[in-house]
């Protein structure tokens, strides 16, 4: 558990005078479920964009999956999976077509794609629906599908940006079971969420307030430190 897969020092992003992310530094280890918390507008999404190569940091350095954020963004992209808060599969393609496309653009070959897609459909219990348009699936299913598609190319790290927004509790439960399974296989999960019950599931949690990282510890230690019963109380105390 002590192999660093994400390591960031003084990462900063400025938009003009506004400092969206203010010198954050942290490490994430292999197989960890790392919760990335903060109020809306605290800078979570901007920080995540810098880690995934979508946005260039104004200053600071760091590495993701062993590659430099500043110079090797394209190499990082090969080694991460990403699932955004916006649903990012194509509604007008079938489940299979979506999976084939995302497998294809990560350079998997035809045989491997076929194998992976079949495995994926099986694990999602969608064997008979492979040729259905994604459009026709309920939201919870879409999110689970998006998560599976984001891992089709077996990335060592996966970034989840509010993956369970708008999903019912039962499906969220299934979703988190899947996350646990992936983490126990050594995959690192970097997840943002606004659901504090989900935060409890994380190995460690970081809290961002106004661009700064103000807390970083396990849920248990954070609750002790802030003398709170639930993560909800911790969040309200810190964010206020």
């Amino acid at each position, binding site marked *: 558990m002590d192999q660093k897969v994400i390591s960031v020092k003084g990462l900063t992003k400025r938009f003009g005078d506004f400092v969206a992310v203010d010198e954050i530094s942290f490490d994430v280890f292999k197989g960890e479920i790392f919760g990335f918390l903060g109020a809306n507008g605290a800078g979570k999404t901007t920080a995540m*964009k810098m880690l*995934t*190569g*979508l*946005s*260039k940091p104004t200053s600071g350095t760091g590495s993701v999956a062993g590659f430099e954020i500043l110079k090797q*963004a*394209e190499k990082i*992209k*090969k080694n*991460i999976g*990403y699932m*955004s808060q*916006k*649903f*990012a*599969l*194509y*509604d*007008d*393609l079938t489940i299979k*077509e979506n999976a*084939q*496309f*995302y*497998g*294809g*653009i*990560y*350079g998997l*070959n035809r045989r491997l794609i076929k194998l992976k897609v079949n495995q994926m459909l099986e694990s999602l219990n969608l064997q008979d629906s492979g040729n259905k348009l994604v459009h026709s699936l309920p939201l919870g299913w879409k999110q689970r599908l998006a998560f599976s598609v984001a891992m089709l190319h077996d990335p060592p790290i996966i*970034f989840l940006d509010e993956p369970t927004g708008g999903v019912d509790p039962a499906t969220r439960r299934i979703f988190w079971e899947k996350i646990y399974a992936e983490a126990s296989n050594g995959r690192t999960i970097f997840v943002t969420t606004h659901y504090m019950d989900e935060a409890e599931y994380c190995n460690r949690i970081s809290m961002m307030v106004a661009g700064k990282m103000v807390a970083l510890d396990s849920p248990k230690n954070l609750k002790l430190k802030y003398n709170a019963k639930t993560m909800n109380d911790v969040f309200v105390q810190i964010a206020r």
Partner: protein
Amino acid sequence: MRVLYYIIRKEFVQVFRNKAILPMMTILPIVQLIILSYAANNEVKQVNIHINDQDHSHFSRRLIQKIQAVDIFHTTSSSTDHQDGNTALLDGLADIVLNIPPRAEHTLLRTRAIKIQLLVNAINGQAATVGSGYLNQIIIDYNKEIRSELISGILVKPKLSPIDIEYSNWYNPELDYKTFMVPGLLGEIVTVLVMLLTAMNIVREREIGTIEQINVSPIKKWQFIIGKMLPFLVIGMILMIVGLVVGKLLFDIPIRGSIWLVFAFLLISLMAILGMGLLISNFANTQQQAIFIAFFFVLIFILLSGLFTPIESMPLWAQYLTIPNPIAHFVAFMRNVLIKGSEFSDVQYRFMVMGILAIVFNSLAILTYKKTT
């Protein structure tokens, strides 16, 4: 290469799964061709004339007969009062008023010269020019006739005008307006549709959020752009084929030049147009913005394309503006090759300009497409 294959396949599946695409490639160009080539028409078919004959002589009746024998003149009213003519013109009932003064024949026989008056409503410039031109011609002919009659009275051989002009209309002998318009319209339709479709396509990915998913993947910019271009290249080709078939069957447009030359040029033009569409999409966040930007350019491009008004009659600065205008080159090319039968050597300038446009637009499109924010 494998990555490119998957990108292209996805784009094709998406584009051709869109139910609006098929009618757009077939019905839309046909309807546009039919409506525009019949309606967007500068041909003057009818000129309304008001005849105000205050003479009522053999002389005036002969002139009126000659005018009424011409098909395009439609005598809407006639009177013997000067004021009636003016009213007809003011009310828009007449395009031209012909005033024959009282005692015209008498004056002509005595002084051998009279004056008659044409009042022309120049609001409809085309009808005014064409109508008064025809009328002038009739009066000149009549003039000759009368002169020869008057002179023959004194037994002198009638002196005809020394220069007789005979017209021969090359490339479009019947001066068929549709022959002129359809090839140009075809160029315009293909260009506009393809540009809009391309611009909308990428912006749509931005709107629904899938572009972010693409941007965190290792897809290279050029792969993404080629994937976006190819389906629309095919659509452009299909549009052109449909348009040519319709043009041939419905309007019997001539196809004098090489059809391969047309498609070679189409290929280069489509690349330029696609590049332009991609460039627009890079500056728009919503489909609405994309349409507005595209509309801004398309409107200027069409009005300055020479499709409806000849480029040669534009002010010089506007003529320079037509150089980076793909529609202008396309329209000119289509007319030259289809109607005139131009060969490669005649249109190589257009190939060169279009090639440069393709390189410039696409380079800009790749440069301004950012995978990062």
